């Protein structure tokens, strides 16, 4: 077992070694990864005490009497809650001893993006990840898809809350109609993929099936929870991807989501995205085929998919194939250097490098290739930010030892030499954080 494997395990599949120390991983990197899939989520202790989406939505519904009250609620409750949520989430990623699990959480959270670019999502974006993503990352894809689609954050983010069957009771009385947003993104971004073989009629059919999937209002006893509202549901048989779904209320969309999770296009789409994220920007057909087969064989067992990623020969062949996203870069820097002294310095680098948690620009989530993250402008920003982190760093690490430890056998002579020759400690730390060995994973 070489330490190159340890480096790959810690960086390609993890969030960088804590304190730069690869020692604990080096004895058996693969088992180190596998163990994380079988144990409890190491981030959970750091996320204790955060409110559930139900609590937040209930409080919000009760507060929204007037415009003024809504404003106050946002200012006094939602904003501080969001800040706390993203601080704890970031801290959890820095501290966790199951970083592979954490990477899977981030991957799936990004696959099923909800974003505060829609203001009403702000209070419950974090709860969405805690409730609909985190518990499922080694579970079943179809179950995750259901949990995600029923979650208030997704129903609000993609407007299903306001979608009404045109010939439903509410639709006829108030002249309201469909909103296709959620249905389209489920087909295009969550399951089949844009070339997965669906048409505009399929979008409309799924949108009809999803009518009535909403969040219970304040007059309901289940306020803040998922609720199926028959009065908004479009009645009648629907046809999706050639299959007829007789009228069955809430169960229609549930069945449709299960069928979509089982669709071969979904297996292909998920396999491609996982390979692109964990292996290389342009994964080979063989790698995608292998992952796709595993998805089909196991009916979308995401734990099995994660294990399959580790067993791919090609991921151990070559280190540093991927450029880190800003989020991965900042988290790995803090894992190496330790938490910043001021808590505001925890989030600021993420914001300034353009990857504030839960704020992806569109439902497609953050992009996942080097050309999306490294432009001339953004690279200069990265370097500036790493230099700033180096300046704020005042622990007594020796940068050369740190580099030798953290980069292990992938460290190039010239990088170590440059760090050794740096004119100051700050400059040495800055070089450590900006070197190709640290910018890539």
């Amino acid at each position, binding site marked *: 077992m070489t330490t190159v494997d340890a480096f790959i395990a810690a960086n390609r599949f993890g969030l960088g070694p804590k304190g730069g120390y690869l020692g604990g991983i080096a004895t058996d990197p693969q088992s180190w990864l596998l163990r994380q899939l079988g144990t409890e989520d190491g981030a959970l202790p750091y996320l204790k005490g955060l409110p559930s989406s139900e609590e937040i939505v209930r409080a919000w519904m009760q507060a929204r009497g007037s415009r003024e009250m809504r404003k106050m609620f946002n200012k006094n409750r939602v904003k501080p809650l969001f800040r706390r949520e993203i601080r704890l989430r970031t801290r959890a990623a820095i501290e966790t001893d199951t970083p592979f699990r954490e990477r899977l959480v981030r991957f799936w959270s990004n696959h099923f993006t909800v974003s505060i670019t829609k203001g009403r999502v702000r209070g419950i974006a974090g709860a969405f990840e805690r409730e609909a993503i985190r518990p499922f990352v080694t579970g079943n894809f179809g179950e995750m898809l259901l949990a995600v689609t029923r979650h208030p954050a997704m129903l609000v983010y993609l407007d299903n809350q306001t979608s009404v069957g045109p010939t439903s009771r509410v639709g006829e009385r108030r002249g309201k109609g469909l909103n296709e947003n959620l249905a389209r993104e489920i087909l295009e971004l969550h399951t089949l993929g844009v070339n997965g073989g669906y048409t505009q009629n399929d979008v409309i059919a799924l949108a009809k099936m999803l009518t009535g999937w909403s969040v219970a209002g304040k007059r309901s006893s289940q306020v803040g929870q998922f609720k199926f509202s028959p009065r908004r549901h479009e009645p009648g048989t629907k046809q999706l991807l050639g299959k007829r779904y007789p009228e069955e209320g809430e169960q229609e969309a549930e069945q449709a989501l299960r069928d979509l999770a089982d669709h071969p296009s979904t297996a292909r789409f998920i396999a491609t995205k996982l390979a692109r994220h964990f292996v290389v920007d342009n994964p080979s057909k063989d790698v995608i085929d292998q992952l796709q087969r595993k998805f089909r064989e196991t009916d979308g067992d995401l734990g099995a998919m994660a294990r399959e990623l580790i067993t791919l020969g090609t991921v151990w062949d070559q280190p540093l194939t991927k450029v880190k996203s800003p989020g991965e870069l900042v988290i790995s820097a803090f894992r190496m250097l330790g938490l910043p002294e001021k808590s505001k310095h925890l989030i600021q680098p993420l914001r300034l490098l*353009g990857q504030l948690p839960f704020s992806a620009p569109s439902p497609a989530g953050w992009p996942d290739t080097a050309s999306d993250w490294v432009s*001339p*402008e953004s690279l200069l920003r990265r370097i500036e930010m790493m230099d700033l982190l180096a300046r704020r760093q005042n622990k007594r690490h020796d940068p050369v030892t740190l580099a030798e430890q953290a980069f292990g056998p992938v460290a190039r002579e010239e990088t170590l030499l440059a760090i050794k020759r740096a004119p100051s400690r700050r400059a040495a730390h800055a070089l450590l954080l900006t070197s190709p060995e640290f910018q890539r994973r």
Partner: protein
Amino acid sequence: MTSRRDFLIGASATGVSCAFSAPGLALANADTGKRLVLVVLRGGMDGLAAFPPIGDPNYEALRRGLLQTMDNTIKLDRRFAMHRSLAPLATHYKKGDMAVIHAIAGPQRTRSHFDAQNVLENGATKAHLLLDGWLNRALSVIDKRKQRLGLAVGYNTPPVMRGTTPVASWAPARIPPSPTHLLDTLGSLYKSDPVLGRALSEGRRAQAMTGAVLGNTKMKRGNMRNPGRFKTLAESAGRLLAAEQSARIAVIEMGGWDTHANQGADTGRLARNLGLLANGLDELSNRLKPVWQDTVICVVTEFGRTVRMNGSKGTDHGTGGAAILLGGAVAGGRVATHWPGLGEDSLYGGRDLAPTADMRGLFKTVLHDHLNVSSSTLESSVFPDSKNAIPPPGKLIRS
């Protein structure tokens, strides 16, 4: 064709040498004096709200819930009006410096943002068919000496400008600049890294060039596509393009157009965004005044939106949309469209404005008539398979 590797070495060599020369000398005697700004509105602007077809007999009935009050619109001609929030552009229209293109769309019928944006930018007949952007391919003939006449405004180079022709980029500073020795050392550490190496040398080169014109422009933190940032980006782009030894062709992005819910009419979400767009374009035109006669600003979006209101007082992804041409070089003062009409039989798929012009036709006209890119180059490399792409009717660029 140069291989990718040759190109990278060439680019990094220029980058290093220029980073140390006086910034103002980065570019002498650019190969063209013409200016082009491409503004990409991401999310799908509702063209029927921006430029309502008031003369169409079906307009009022179909747009129920989204109609602007008549006295609140600005009349362009007998058939079309302009949203009140675009008022800062009215004088340009009157002077003949602005043309509105209506019922235009890309060549692929798709209601996916991501595919529609991709095809808007790659210039192919389909999404993901070509990996680089059409503007970058056009730059390879406009900017033969690789003087970085192209400029990406914002933190990321938009796909339309990505490719093998090196382009400059600018974004406002938010973090203190890195020490020179760090950048110098990284220059050599990144040499064998094709991605990081190229980006660093391009970045340093761009910094030198734009620093000379703009100094250190500060801007509030946040997303560069946020509509509220558009004016600052437009202003800086204008200053850079107006400078003598600087870029000539810029791309700016602006988000916030995906109005699925509560779109509004006279006021509201869309009205606010249109206002921000108009103010930004007006600022851009002020900055470009010295070169206004040589300027074309082209504002496009990935698709229009559904003609009817959806269940959430918004509109869903549609097909035919609107575009704007603005600038002293524009033969404007008119709405250029083969108007398909909003009759039930004319709507695309029974729900969208039918496109009668191809976005590639518009881009080809601008590149050919304004920037003198030859037809053969346009057909062969910039927009392959675009012979049948229908341009908007009439003359768009003054001769």
